[in-house]
């Protein structure tokens, strides 16, 4: 809806109406007031010396800050990717015909949604203390084929993304489930009637349609995750953006400018994410927003009509009108 189109442009409409728009004073007054406030706000931000913009610019591209941005991005991307994969598995399990799978999924969501992510992160940080060795063997016996120290596998960075991902998966799986359930059951029936199996139907028919519904809240969650990464302090993992800027602030005794540095970066990353989200929505919206001109919102009537509108003679006429198109069938 980027450019404004004139209805019936180029058509010959002799009595085309040319009228002045309605006079509205309210919007103009409101716009002036809002613009005034905005100008005051900007002036305040620029001229307030306590915000210390020179320090902001000085540290915006500081090495430690950039490093923090990198780790924050890495944590966000890795934990979201893992969470999305896990959440789809959980949501599909939740709808499974197997009660054990349903139960496991339910328990996972109950536990990871029901405890604070901060606490979970502390536990993942302590993992190598709680479980010193990871080994592969026969359960409930001493037989072990292979083992490794937990501290090698569950490093601070790994603990951070595992903790974030498991917690996020619990939330996301409910979003995914809502998306799956929103797809009309007729879709499954049509696919079954074509001989498609359950997995194929899920992958080719249901999930692509559910994506449309899943993406906007997942975008929300991703932006939430970006900021949740600051909680990995609990592991403790101390290289992400919030901690990095805070460390500098403590050294300089200047908390405000460094908070602004963090804000600018978070806002920048969020903006990039919003652009990506818009693209994804466009991709998965194909076929849904497509409507021919003039039928916007028109749906076929679903109520069965009163039986017996059929009139033999008339139908034959329609048949003849269309006959040419169907000659291929009779040949």
């Amino acid at each position, binding site marked *: 809806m980027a450019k404004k189109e004139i209805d019936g442009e180029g058509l010959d409409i002799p009595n085309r109406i040319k009228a002045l728009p309605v006079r509205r004073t309210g919007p103009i007054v409101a716009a002036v007031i809002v613009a005034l406030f905005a100008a005051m706000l900007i002036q305040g931000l620029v001229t307030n010396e306590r915000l210390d913009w020179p320090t902001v610019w000085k540290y915006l591209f500081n090495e430690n800050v950039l490093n923090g941005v990198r780790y924050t991005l890495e944590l966000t991307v890795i934990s979201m990717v893992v969470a999305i994969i896990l959440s789809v598995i959980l949501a599909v399990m939740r709808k499974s015909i197997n009660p054990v799978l349903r139960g496991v999924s339910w328990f996972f969501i109950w536990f990871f949604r029901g405890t604070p992510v901060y606490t979970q992160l502390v536990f993942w940080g302590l993992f190598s203390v709680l479980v010193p060795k990871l080994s592969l063997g026969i359960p409930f016996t001493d037989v072990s084929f292979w083992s490794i120290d937990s501290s090698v596998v569950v490093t601070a960075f790994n603990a951070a993304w595992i903790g974030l991902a498991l917690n996020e998966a619990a939330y996301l799986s409910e979003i995914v489930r809502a998306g799956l359930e929103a797809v*009309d059951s*007729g*879709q499954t*029936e*049509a*696919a*079954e*009637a*074509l*001989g*498609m*199996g*359950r997995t*194929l139907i899920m992958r*080719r*028919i249901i999930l*692509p*349609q559910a994506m449309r519904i899943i993406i906007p809240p997942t975008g929300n969650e991703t932006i939430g995750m970006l900021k949740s990464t600051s909680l990995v302090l609990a592991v403790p993992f101390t290289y992400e953006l919030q901690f990095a800027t805070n460390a500098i602030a403590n050294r300089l005794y200047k908390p405000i400018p460094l908070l602004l540095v963090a804000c600018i970066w978070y806002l920048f990353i969020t903006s990039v994410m919003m652009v990506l989200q818009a693209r994804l929505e466009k991709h*998965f919206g*194909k*076929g*849904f927003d*497509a*409507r*021919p001109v003039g039928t916007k919102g028109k749906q*076929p*009537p*679903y109520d*069965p*009509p009163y*039986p*017996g*509108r*059929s*009139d*033999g003679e008339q*139908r034959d006429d*329609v*048949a003849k*009108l*269309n*006959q040419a*198109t*169907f000659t*291929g*069938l*009779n040949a």
Partner: protein
Amino acid sequence: MADTTTPAIRAIGVHKAFGSLHVLKGVDLTVMPGTVTVILGPSGSGKSTFLRLINQLETLTGGEIDVNGEMIGYKTVERRGKQVLQTLNDKEVAAQRAKLGMVFQRFNLFPHMTALENVMEAPVHVKHMNKHEARELAAMELNRVGLGERLDYYPAQLSGGQQQRVAIARALAMKPEIMLFDEPTSALDPELVGEVLNVMRSLAKEGMTMVCVTHEIGFAREVADQVVFMDGGVVVEKGGPEIIANPTEPRFKDFLQHVL
């Protein structure tokens, strides 16, 4: 060609209940290959349920349905010297469904795919046909229903009649031996009904075995080899298309008076 002595569909004493609701109360019906059977009846008479049973979208509660002489949904196996029924697994069900094409009242096209992709979907992913061949097949089937110009349209860009014709092409692309139509024109604007009936008429002329649940009495009179009137979960009257003009059962008479 299928041999002409084995019925395409044979239903014996079919019962179906949803919870405590007894929908079908012993339906017997035989459909011979190459014939068109039209099932008429008021809403709630169980005619759609019967059609859905044939395609295993519902499970039988009692009785038996054979397609081309093969029992659907179950197989007989021997357990401890006794013959018992066992439910078929997904693969076996899919194999039985492959013989049947189904067209729904609400089209159920895949909205995220174009007309061409809708028709290609099952040949590519179920029959593992290569994409190039499937594209040609799909284009041919769409051409056959008069939509050769609309290959790249999404369902939302098509009229109801066009959508239903895509749905018919989609079913035909799987080369079914029998086509099931569940009120294919009931969701259409009156002026679009004709184009869909036309395709069905042509299919019938080609010798396709068809079972149609419909309210189009004119279509039944013209195309049907067998007309079945269902009410209250049983077959009340069946015969050739001439029974529409001369119904014997009072309930059928009454129904026809309301619809004609």
